[in-house]
């Protein structure tokens, strides 16, 4: 008989204490709860869900409050079966809206006056916090220090979300105003090709990382390593390179690059897949895809062209407005242009980086708990929540979390088999009313990332599917339907990517595919921004693309018309 305490979960389904979805109470609070399909499909592991629900929620309320948005107080979030459900917190009275507006005018001003320094200072603060976390050698640290590192990681995550949402609310507010002004002055909105031309042709950190990988593909060729890489099936690229002195020298340099820029996992909003630093397979597969495609880094040639087109469009547009409108219009144009850069860079520096550090800290504890027999393997830590980590980390030999992990893992597997409903509505409340609630909130993030524009169905086109234009252009080719990140290596040059949504870890694909079709997205979604920078068409808000299109089918997408044709049905 061992004297180890077996921790029995009282009710295993409690993953995020206080923020589990409670049908009765929560539908009373708000009539509509939306599933965050972009981030929580497939369902989150319990530990990741805990972080997201607690701090994305906190960050949005912090951001909305800090800016004193007149009509919305951020979003509320609940956890249900691995899914994140959200609703908006409306400002209830007009008197309060007026009060908030007074403060809003002051709070939003830094975004207008000096956006770059604002973003830079926020970013520098967060990057500094990351460096602090990284200084601890997890395998040599005491249990106390490990737990301390984890607690600090929790605080860094919390601060990251504050910065994230404060910046995002402010940035998107400017973007929406610019779009409104374009609608009023030029009669175009943000699905119009001219609008896209105006905000395209900018470099960002994510694209710079892509370019580095392309440069490494050139280097590999020069070092005579192309054949080895092309003959590898993906997972074994690193081991085959490490087998030769030349390859080892190459990998040493490649790993140094990853230590800087590899703080990301294949899936943006999860922590159960290895980071690029732990397993360089995903960037090496990108590298192999660059080798297969051959030729230059088309992003650079493309950017020169896009920049020229943008400058012509800017002159053209400025010529159409009156001199006294030029000053503020130009300021807003610049802010809208920065929105795209922000959207991409914040994923890299905020979400991906923090999640990679959460994984690092959690696995440090996971290894320690596994060694003590508290859990069976280090990765089991993703099925443990912080309350339990606090309970066991200093004296892991005293506790047994294995039964909790078994139960949670079984639950998680069940969540993965049964999709969460896209929306949970109060009786008598329909989807149109739910959307109207989002629109009424005027919440800039809800409008630009969640709602997007609805496709206009044009029967005369005889299209199989309709969508909105995220990036202009027309493409025809074979479809490649990707439902999860581990299939990314299957994408072949010249194909058209069909997915529910995309995230920054997918960007290298954009350099060799012909077009993108996504089920959900708005003009500031990842797929739209990156598609524009690579000059390939992107069709968004197709809703059922991943269900109706099959891999290998020949399809034609016309983003300008918002139409998709399946050519061999």
């Amino acid at each position, binding site marked *: 008989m061992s004297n180890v305490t077996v921790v029995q979960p009282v009710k295993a389904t409690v993953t995020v204490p206080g923020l589990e979805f409670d049908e009765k109470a929560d539908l009373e609070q708000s009539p509509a709860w939306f599933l965050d399909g972009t981030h929580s499909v497939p369902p989150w592991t319990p530990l990741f869900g805990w972080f997201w629900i607690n701090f994305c929620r906190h960050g949005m309320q912090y951001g909305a409050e800090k800016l004193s*948005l*007149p*009509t919305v107080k951020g979003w509320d979030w609940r956890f249900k079966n691995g899914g994140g459900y959200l609703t908006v917190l409306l400002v209830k009275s007009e008197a309060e*809206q007026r009060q908030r*507006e007074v403060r*809003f*005018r002051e709070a*939003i*001003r830094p975004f*207008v*006056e000096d956006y770059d320094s604002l973003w830079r200072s926020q970013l520098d603060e967060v990057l500094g916090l990351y460096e602090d976390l990284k200084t601890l050698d997890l395998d040599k640290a005491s249990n106390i220090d490990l737990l301390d590192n984890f607690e600090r990681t929790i605080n860094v995550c919390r601060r990251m979300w504050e910065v994230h949402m404060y910046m995002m609310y402010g940035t998107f*507010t*400017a973007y*929406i*105003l610019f779009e*409104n*002004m374009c609608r009023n002055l030029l009669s175009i909105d943000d699905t119009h090709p001219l609008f896209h031309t105006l905000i395209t042709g900018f470099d960002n950190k994510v694209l710079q990382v892509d370019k580095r990988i392309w440069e490494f593909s050139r280097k590999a060729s020069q070092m005579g390593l192309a054949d080895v890489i092309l003959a590898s099936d993906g997972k074994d690229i690193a081991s085959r390179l490490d087998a030769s002195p030349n390859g080892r020298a190459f990998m040493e340099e490649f790993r140094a690059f990853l230590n800087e820029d590899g703080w990301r996992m294949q899936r943006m909003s999860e922590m159960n897949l290895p980071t690029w630093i732990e397993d360089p397979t995903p960037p090496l597969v990108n590298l192999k895809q660059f080798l297969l495609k051959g030729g230059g880094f088309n992003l650079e040639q493309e950017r020169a062209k896009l920049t020229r087109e943008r400058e012509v469009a800017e002159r053209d547009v400025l010529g159409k407005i009156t*001199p*006294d409108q*030029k*000053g*503020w219009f130009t*300021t*807003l144009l610049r802010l809208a242009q920065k929105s795209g850069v922000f959207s991409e860079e914040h994923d890299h520096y905020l979400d991906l980086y923090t999640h990679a550090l959460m994984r690092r800290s959690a696995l440090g504890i996971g290894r320690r708990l596994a060694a003590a027999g508290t859990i069976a393997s280090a990765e089991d830590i993703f099925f443990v929540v912080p309350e339990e980590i606090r309970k066991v980390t200093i004296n892991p030999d005293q506790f047994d979390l294995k039964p909790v992990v078994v139960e949670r893992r079984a639950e998680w597997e069940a969540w993965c088999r049964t999709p969460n409903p896209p929306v949970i509505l109060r009786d008598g409340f329909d989807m149109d009313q739910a959307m109207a609630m989002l629109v*009424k909130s*005027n919440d800039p993030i809800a409008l630009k990332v969640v709602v997007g524009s609805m496709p206009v169905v044009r029967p005369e086109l005889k299209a199989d599917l309709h969508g909105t234009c995220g990036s202009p252009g027309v493409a025809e080719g074979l479809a490649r339907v990707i439902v999860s990140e581990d299939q990314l290596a299957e994408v072949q040059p010249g194909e058209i990517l069909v997915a529910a949504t995309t995230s920054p870890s997918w960007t290298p694909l954009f350099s060799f595919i012909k077009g993108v079709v996504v089920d959900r997205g708005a003009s500031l979604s990842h797929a739209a921004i990156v598609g524009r920078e690579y000059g390939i068409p992107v069709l968004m808000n197709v809703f059922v693309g991943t269900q109706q299109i099959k891999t290998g089918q020949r399809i034609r997408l016309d983003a300008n018309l918002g139409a998709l044709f399946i050519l061999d049905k």
Partner: protein
Amino acid sequence: MTVNKWIYGLDELGQEHLELVGRKCANLGEMTKLGMRVPPGFAISVDGFETYMRETGLGARIEAYFSAQGEDFKKNIQKQMDASRAVKAMMAETPLPNIIGDAIESNYEALCTKYGDRELPVAVRSSGAVSMPGQMETYLHVRGPSEVARRVVEVWQSTFNTRAIAFRLEKGMPVDKAPIGVAVIRMVNAKSAGVVLTVAPTTGDTDHVVIEGNWGLGESVVSGEITPDNFIVNKASLTIERKVSRKAKWVISTGNGTAKADVPLDLQEAPCLEDHEIHELVRIALNVEKHFGVPQDMEWVVDRDLPFPESVIWVQARPAKFTAKRKEADADYIVDQMARLFRH
């Protein structure tokens, strides 16, 4: 002993030489490149100051002086004032090495020869590579080689004004030296002077050029003490719209400075610029605006002694400042519109 080049003709300089000769000199060089006539003269580079500090041994002494200061130096204004006095005294007591003095004097004498005046009046102006409050000494109407050299040293001394020392301490810059150049340029004998704006300051209208001017030196216009003549020129058609004011006062050169005086009666209601001078000002201003891509705020002088068009001389060109005000108005408008986004 060799000494690197540290004196430059203005026509050798441009915007890229900011760190070599300081902003003022680099600007004058750049203006020359853009086809603007600037007062002729030469620039003493930052290296000139450093050579002086090295040759005299002052550099090492001053460095030693500052490194002997305690922790509280940064916060103690009295100590900073003492340091300013002590360092300036060191500089004042140290004779100018011949190698430095001769170089300055021979360049000045070459300028004198060119204009046939052995005691050509010049302005000796500081030209900081970084903008630094408290070190903007300018000496007007300096005549004679030894006097010019003396004023150059005084400009160098101004880098140890208390305000300059305090500024460098606060910004974490080295306190024992400062990158400063000196401009030595011929005094202009101003018939009239004023400003040109390639955008209307109040409305933001960019279709017209606005010229303001008065008889005599430009100070009277810049200071806003009088109502100057106002000429609005259409950038496309070049038609001139005139508002000639009664100009009772002007600023004139005296032997060793400037003074405010009454404008002779016959000039008071006469326009201070002739049409061909106006058109020359507009021509150059538009070139400069085009070059920089932003509206310009420029200062001009018409010389009494030189023939047209050599008489039209520029002393300053910078992006129009009003844009700051305009920007604020734009920000107000944007914030207002943002607030409206949230109204149902």
